């Protein structure tokens, strides 16, 4: 049980996918303008991460590893993720049309969100079990959610701030992102010591 809690805390805080591993920066900068869409996007990404891990882990264990085809991982995983995102799109369009409209182009772009592929590949690299992989995917998704929500708040303040003209827009956003990222350095070592 302890190991699951540790994986979860690691994924959310110390090894935050966006702010510590710098994966999934595209939606982090693209959809973080408003808190509502940022939350919706993060939940969609979390869902895709967990589903992708649930689907790719058995494929890898049953089909690829026994035949020595590990080099196919990236191709096969992207294929599965793309299929899942398409499925999610159809489901959202049917059941949550407002969120579907708000996410727009960023919804199909989850396919190419490197955080999703990243969590799937890193799970295998860390040699997690199936359950541990799922918890890690959930932790990565929640970490993504935390980063998005925090940064959406920062950006909403940035809108009204008096910034030098040369830094307005993307430069200020990137500077703010680096500051938020630096603040996450403070969590280093917390997961190991919390459960020691």
């Amino acid at each position, binding site marked *: 049980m302890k190991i699951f809690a540790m994986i979860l805390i690691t994924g959310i805080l110390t090894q935050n996918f966006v702010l510590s591993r710098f994966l999934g920066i595209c939606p982090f900068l693209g959809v973080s303008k408003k808190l509502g869409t940022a939350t919706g996007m993060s939940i969609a990404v979390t869902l895709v991460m967990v589903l992708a891990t649930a689907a790719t882990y058995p*494929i890898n264990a049953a*089909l*690829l590893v026994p*035949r020595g*085809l590990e080099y*196919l991982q990236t*191709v*096969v995983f992207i*294929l*599965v993720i*793309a*299929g899942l995102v*398409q*499925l999610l799109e*159809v*489901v959202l*369009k*049917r059941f949550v*049309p407002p969120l579907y409209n708000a996410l727009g182009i960023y919804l199909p772009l989850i396919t190419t969100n490197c955080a999703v592929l990243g969590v799937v590949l890193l799970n295998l690299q860390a040699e997690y079990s199936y359950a541990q992989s799922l918890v890690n995917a959930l932790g990565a998704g929640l970490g993504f959610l935390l980063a998005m929500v925090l940064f959406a708040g920062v950006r909403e303040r940035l809108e009204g701030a008096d910034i030098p003209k040369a830094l307005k827009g993307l430069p200020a956003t990137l500077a703010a992102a680096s500051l938020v990222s630096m603040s996450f350095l403070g969590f280093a070592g917390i997961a190991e010591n919390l459960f020691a």
Partner: protein
Amino acid sequence: MEILLPSLIVGAIALILGVGLSFASEKLAVPVDEREEELLAVLPGVNCGACGYSGCAGYAAALSKGEAESASLCAPGGDDVARQIAELLGVSVGHIAPMTALVRCQGGEDVAKQSFIYYGMESCRMAAQLAGGVKSCPNGCIGLGDCVKACPYDALRVCPDGVARVDALKCRACKACVAVCPKDLITLVPKDAPTTAVLCRNTQKGAVIRKLCEKGCIACKRCEKVCPHGAVSVTDFLARIDPEKCTGCGKCVAVCPNGCIV
């Protein structure tokens, strides 16, 4: 074998996903009303909102469900579109007279007094919050172009004298400008009919207006007396012309001492 097996694996996964997805999209398809699609194709697609719905798709949905009050709400599409909608829905519409927007102010910088100089955001709404704008006349055009920005057809211009004017040829009467003008200066008038209009909205007494603007209506009632059709009436110190009665004979234009009827 080294090539065949990986290809087979990837191919099989793709096939399973493909079949699964097409099955899902069939099962979970959002039912789209065919008539709604047809209606949407007829509408001009500018999403101006003049019909009162959230864009053309909203109006098409309301029409197909029978919730829309009328088939002739599309101002940009005018008579043409209304008739096509009516045909699709099997209802009848009367003739709709094409309208155009009209800015009811001629108080340019050389004509109307300014109370102060405005340095601030290029927005009439903002400027109107500061003592009602730079013009001394409480109904004067501020001239910062909120209506120009609101117009989806590029039909409005702020002329060099600082008053917005409408190009009737480009105007499709979507009312976008009517809604944004903080001074309520823009109204719709019939486009084709040869009518005249009073280009002033000031309801102050003549003596007051005279000090503020050279082209304001001073309510001298000469137009009211000269009109042979009884179309002009002066109420609240402002002349108003009833477009139903006006024939465009131009007698009031000739007699107006301040040239505020055109």
